[in-house]
């Protein structure tokens, strides 16, 4: 892949210098391990009829690292920032700071045609589209069919089932993110939303965190105090959960669909037994609202080739590339009709219907330019899970209110 990038760079460089020939665009994106992004870049370059070539500039794997690199270059007005892969939580920040270009309304409609409204909303700030959804993401409740005949619908049912398995001496852990990082904020957001509340108000200007937040904290504590909690919960991220589930010590896992291709590769026997259902809810009879994730593509504000960059984004987020990202890399597509496309489902995406339902009920994380500080305060105040208590919520409210005003220190 490196050779391909270098080759692209070489031919792009010569073209841009001469004024004729293809414009060289740089796409800043994390290192997608299946190579689907590199293939998309090559295909789109080839299909542009010599208008542009796309070079991939690989960012770190963790989203904090990606954001720091992007922000550092953007703050220095680096003109090579043509196409930016933005986590769904950064839209407000990048828009407000003037780092991403808004798309004109007509172009925005074409670019997002046929895409899931929930995914489009993550790329939108103050009614303007700043980033086109590349892939979306939602967690499901994955369980072992050989241990759990009837999948739980609520958080309490899940803990009860786990406790019963523990008494029988069977694998019983609930694998979920608990380290002090973004994933823990996602868990809190999903719980608050599933209890019928939200962290900030709709405008992202005031703290809410009412009774549903108390319910969410109680749910975290209930898991922490039950035998269902993995002993290393307070240090677990998505991939630790995947590994623990694959090695057979768990009965449940709250995680993204990437775990499924992985399990089929690493433990095919266990993969046969994996069932999936909606995220557990906190209000019986009401659907859960797991947190929407994913990546969107934006045009950098200091790019000298914004028109070409927008065209390249249209190509990268196109149908064929989305299918390849989904099948090869497990990234849920943003095109709505794929979720009912039988060929796509049979081609390696059996849980498409469950993800589709989850996405329709999905909750978004607080939309504010200060999201990063808000998230840090949540993860910090409620960590480790075993010490989370409703008493800390008032402290959290104050910390978030400060963060929204960019007052105070972030942990």
């Amino acid at each position, binding site marked *: 892949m490196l050779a391909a990038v270098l080759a692209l760079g070489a031919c792009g460089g010569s073209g841009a210098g001469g004024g004729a020939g293809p414009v060289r665009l740089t796409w800043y994106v994390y290192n997608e391990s299946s190579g689907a992004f590199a293939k998309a870049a090559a295909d789109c370059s080839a299909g542009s009829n010599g208008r542009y070539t796309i070079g991939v500039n690989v960012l770190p794997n963790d989203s*904090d690292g990606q*954001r*720091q690199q992007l*922000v*550092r270059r953007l*703050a220095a007005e680096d003109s090579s920032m043509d196409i930016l892969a933005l986590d769904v939580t950064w839209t407000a*920040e990048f828009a*407000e*700071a*003037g780092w991403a270009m808004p798309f004109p309304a007509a172009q925005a409609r074409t670019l997002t045609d046929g895409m899931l409204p929930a995914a489009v909303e993550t790329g939108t700030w103050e009614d303007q589209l700043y980033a086109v959804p590349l892939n979306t993401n939602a967690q499901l409740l994955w369980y072992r069919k050989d241990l759990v005949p009837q999948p739980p619908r609520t958080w309490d049912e899940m803990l009860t089932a786990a406790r019963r398995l523990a008494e029988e001496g069977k694998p019983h852990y609930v694998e979920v993110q608990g*380290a*002090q*990082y973004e994933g823990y904020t996602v868990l809190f957001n999903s719980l608050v939303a599933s209890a019928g509340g939200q962290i900030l108000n709709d405008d992202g200007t005031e703290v809410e965190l009412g009774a549903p937040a108390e319910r969410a904290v109680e749910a975290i504590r209930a898991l922490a105090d039950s035998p269902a909690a993995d002993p*290393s919960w*307070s*240090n677990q991220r998505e991939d630790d959960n995947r590994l623990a589930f694959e090695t057979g010590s768990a009965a449940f896992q709250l995680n993204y669909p990437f775990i499924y291709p992985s399990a089929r590769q690493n433990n095919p026997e266990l993969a046969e037994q994996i069932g999936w259902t909606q995220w557990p809810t906190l209000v019986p009879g009401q659907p859960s609202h797991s947190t929407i994730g994913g990546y969107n593509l934006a045009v950098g504000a200091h790019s000298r080739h914004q028109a070409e960059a927008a065209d390249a984004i249209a190509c990268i987020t196109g149908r064929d590339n989305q299918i390849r990202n989904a099948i090869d890399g497990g990234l849920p597509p943003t095109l709505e009709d794929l979720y009912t496309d039988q060929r796509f489902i049979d081609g390696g995406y059996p849980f498409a219907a469950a993800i589709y339902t989850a996405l329709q009920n999905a909750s978004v994380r607080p939309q504010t*330019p*200060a999201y*990063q*500080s808000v998230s*840090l305060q949540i993860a910090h105040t409620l*960590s*480790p899970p075993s010490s989370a208590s409703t008493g800390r919520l008032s402290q959290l409210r104050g910390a978030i209110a400060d963060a929204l005003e*960019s*007052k*105070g*220190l*972030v*942990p």
Partner: protein
Amino acid sequence: MTVAVDGAERGNGRGSPETERQGNEAKRRGRRGRAPLSARARAERRLGWVLCAPAVIVILAVTAYPVGYAVYLSLQRYDLRFPADSEFVGLANYGTVLSSSLWWQALAVTAVITVISVAIQFVLGLALALAMHRAMIGRGLIRTVILIPYGIVTVVAAFGWRYAWTPDTGYLSGLFGDAAPLTEQVQGIGVIVLAEVWKTTPFMALLLLAGLALVPEDLLRAAKVDGATAWQRLIRVILPLMKPAILVALLFRVLDAFRIFDSIYVLTAGAYDTRSVSILGYDNLFTALNLGVGSSLSVLIFLVVALVAFVFVRGFGAAAPGGEDHR
């Protein structure tokens, strides 16, 4: 090297106490009290300034300007995410930092790491320095082996420690029954101190070795003849003579340890209340993008470091580097 110069200066001072007193007196009286300079001396002085001007300008550009800019930023409300809201806020950012429990907690953690790690490094470093000094056979080999940890990039070493202490995969974690010390404050700080000690003890040993070279062999033999035990020779003869080297070593290490960043960044990233002041500054500057508050943190760290250096030079003044009176 500093130590060697120190020794030489001391020799000069002893040789001509008269000149030194005169020099001190001239300094006290200041510039005005001096005899007027001859035209040639003035020309030479001007040439001196011209010759060192390029270096001064470069130093100003790379140090004074960023420091000054940080001070300027620290007086602003300046958040990259809210560029429109930038304004002058005076000392408000300092108030924010100093009234935050996060700052005091990070300061305490940093102080604990500094004091404990430097204390252990001193004891181990002294032992290693004595071993290197006394080694009769394989001297080169011993010195090389001792220096290996210092030659390893800190981040690489820190990753080594992190994997070693990760449950399931780490050999050290497995040794202690799948312990996960990096998820708990006190144990996490313990691992950070361990990594620091492992890494920089060789540096301490090297500085102390330079000091050991100052101890005259005859003096030790004389002490031996007088019946001093090995311990007494260490405490009564070697250490007092090494004092300048010890102070240099401690000053270097304390200032270095106080700015600890990379091993914590890799080991815990500051989670579970193990963050140092530098980690706190980084998080506020690069993650929160709050340049105002972040810069005031940087300035405060700078002031604390300056204070520590001042206390070292004044408090132990006599033999510290740059001290004027070497008796």
